[in-house]
C-alpha cells in the first residue's frame, strides 16, 4: 500500500542523503521525495511517498526515526490529509492546438504562464491523479517537457507536525 510520510529533519548538510541512503541500503522503495527548509530555517520538511506491506512501512518509519537528524515523522495516510503536486508542462501550441490547449487549461483550472509563437508553458496543481489526467487529456498535443515536483502533504484539521 502507498504511504505518504512527512518528516521534519535538521536542515543540515547530509541529512537528505541519510534518508535517501537508508532507503537504498534497506531496499525500500521511494516513489517521490520533496524537501525544503520550513519557516524555521534550522528545520527541513520532507514529504516522502513509499509503498510496501504494513510490516515494511512499520520498519521504514522506525528506521527513519532512528536517524539522528530526524526530529519527527508522521504517516499522513493514517488519517485525513491533503495531497498536492505541482506540474510545469511545455506543449506545442500551433494552429487549432492553441485553442484546444486553452480550453483544457480552463477545464482543469490550470494556468498558462509562458507563451511563444509555437509553445505554451502551463502550470497546474492538484493530486497526482489530476495531474495524470491532465497529461492524458493532452494526448493529442505534442508535449515537449514535463516537470513534476513530487507530492507535498499536510494533515487536515488542527493536527501539526512539530
Amino acid at each position, binding site marked *: 500500500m502507498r504511504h505518504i510520510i512527512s518528516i521534519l*529533519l*535538521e536542515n543540515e*548538510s*547530509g541529512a537528505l*542523503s*541519510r534518508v535517501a*541512503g537508508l532507503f537504498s*541500503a534497506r531496499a525500500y522503495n521511494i516513489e517521490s521525495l520533496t524537501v525544503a527548509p520550513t519557516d524555521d530555517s534550522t528545520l527541513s520538511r520532507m514529504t516522502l511517498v513509499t509503498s510496501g506491506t504494513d*510490516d515494511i512501512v*512499520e*520498519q521504514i518509519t*522506525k*528506521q527513519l*526515526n*532512528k536517524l*539522528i*537528524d*530526524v*526530529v519527527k515523522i508522521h504517516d499522513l495516510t493514517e488519517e485525513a490529509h491533503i495531497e498536492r503536486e505541482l506540474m510545469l508542462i511545455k506543449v506545442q501550441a500551433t494552429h487549432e492546438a492553441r485553442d484546444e490547449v486553452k480550453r483544457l487549461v480552463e477545464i482543469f483550472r490550470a494556468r498558462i504562464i509562458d507563451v511563444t509563437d509555437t509553445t505554451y508553458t502551463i502550470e497546474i496543481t492538484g493530486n497526482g491523479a489530476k495531474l495524470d489526467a491532465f497529461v492524458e487529456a493532452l494526448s493529442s498535443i505534442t508535449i515537449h517537457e514535463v516537470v513534476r515536483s513530487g507530492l507535498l502533504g499536510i494533515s487536515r484539521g488542527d493536527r501539526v507536525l512539530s
Partner: protein
Amino acid sequence: MELTGAEIIIECLKAEDVDYVFGYPGGAVLHIYDAFFKQEDVKHILVRHEQGATHAADGYARSTGKPGVVLVTSGPGATNAVTGIATAYMDSIPMIVITGQVPKALIGNDAFQEVDSVGITRPIVKHNFLIEDVKDIARVFKQAFFVATTGRPGPVVIDIPKDITAAKTEFNYPKEMVMRSYNPTVKGHPGQIKRAVDIILSAERPMIYTGGGVILGNGSEQLRVFTKKLGYPITQTLMGLGAFPASDKQSLGMLGMHGTYEANMGMHNCDVLIAIGARFDDRVTGNLEKFCPYATIIHVDVDPASISKNVRVDVPIVGEVVQVLNDFNKALEQTDRTPNASAIEKWWHQINEWRSQDCLKYDRDSETIKPQFVIEKMYEVTKGSAIVTSDVGQHQMFAAQYYGFDEPRRWINSGGLGTMGFGMPAAMGAQLAHPDDLVMCVTGESSIQMCIQELATCRQYGLPLKIVNLNNGCMGMVRQWQEFFYDKRYSNSHMDVQPDFKMLAEAYGHVGIRIEKSSDVVPALEEAIALKDRLVFLDFITDQQENVYPMIPAGAGLNEMILV
C-alpha cells in the same frame, strides 16, 4: 585562552575521560599528533594498520563498557578503518572514530588522500559529522560521545579537515547535551510490563532468550535475579554469553545455528518466549516460518526498530534492559502469584531429556588434537577466568560452545559482521583496559593472518596476550560448508603455504610454541600462562576433518538440527 583545533580535540578527549586512543598518523592529522606529543593524559597506541586500531578500540569498549577511540588520517586511513567501524556497528559497540580530512578548500577537488569519509561511513555508523568550523569541535565531540554511548550504542565518525585543526578559538566543553532529534526511550511502558509479567507467570513451557543487549546495557545482575526468581531455562546468543553464568544449571548454553540441542528444542517447543536485548538474527532463528510456532513472544529492546523486524512479537517493550528487568523483578516480588510449579517441573524434565543427548560430545581420547579439546582444556587451566577474544569461523564457535563464560564482558567476538582479523587487535584493547587479567585470543591460521602485523604493536606495548591458534591448515568453516553442501569440492579453502607461526612469533620478539599431540596441550597452556609478561603464540596443529556440531542447515527450523 584560545586553543588550536588540535588542542581542543585533546581537551575534549580529556573531558570524556579517554585514557587510550588507538591510531596511525598521516598528513591530515599531523596537527592532532603534534598536540598528542605535548601532553601525557591521553595515551596513544600506535597500531600497524588502521583496521587494527578500530578492532583494538572495539575490544577496549566491549571489555569495559566505555567508548573506544580511534584516530586515523584521511583517505586510505579512513578506508582502512571501515571494516572495523562496520564491525562495531553490527554489534552496537560505542566507538568514536576521528578521521582527518583534507583542508576545507580542497574538499571535492580529488585532493591527495581525499575520500568522502562521511559518505563512505554513513551506512555503518550510528551518526557522523563533518566539522566545518573550529568553534564546532567541542559541541560535536560532546554530541558524538552522547550519541555513541546512549540508547542502542554504536560507532560515530568525526571527520575533521586539516585547516580546522590549526585554527584557533576559545575552548568550552558543554556540560550537558540535549538534542531535539535524539531522545532514546529509557523506561519500559508500565502497562506492557504488567501484561508481560502476567504472561511470564502463566507460562507452562517458558524460555528466556537473551542477547548482547544485556551485556551492552549492563543488565547482567538484574537478569540473574530475574532468571533465578523464576527458575526458568535460559539460552543466550553468541553475543550474550556471560550475562548469565554458563555453569548455572538453568543455562542451556547458546542457541541458533551452532547452539545446543536443548536450547534449540526448548526454543521450538516453548509456549512463552522472553526475549531480552536480542534481535532475532537469522543465525538464531533459522527458518522464520518455522520459528517458535507455539510461543507468545515478549521482546524487550532499547531499539524500537529491532522489535517485530524479523519476528512479529506479542508484547513489545521498548526500554533499557536494566530498567525493564528492575521493573519485572519488582513486579514479581510484589505479586502473590508464582510460576506454575508442576508445569515447569514437567518442562525441565523434557529439557533434561534433550540435554542427555550430550550434543557437544566429541572424541576426547584422540591423539590428533581436536579443536574442542584445546578450548575445554583452556577453560580448565584458566578456571574460566580469562577474557577470551576470537576471530571468525569454526574456532569462534568452539570457543563459544566449550569455554563456559560466567561473567559479562569476558567474551569478545565479531558476531554481526563476522570479521576475520578481529581477534588479536580486540585482545590488545582488552589487555590495555585490564592489564592484570589473562587475555586470550582464540583464532585460526586463516583469521590471524588478516591482522598479523599487530604482533609488533603487542611487542611495543608489552601486551602479554596468549594466542591460541587452532591451526587446521584451512578455512575450517568454509571447508565444512563445502563438505556438507558442495559435495566436498574444496574450492580455495585450503592454503597450501602457511608461515611457521612459531618462528613468526619469535621474529616479532614473542614466544612461539608448536603443539602437535593432545597430551602436550595442557602443558603448553600452563607454560604459556606462566609466562606472565610475554606474548605467547600457541600454534596447535588440529584435526582438519573436525566439524562444528550440532548444526542447523540453512532453511531449516530450530528443531531440525544435525547432531554428531
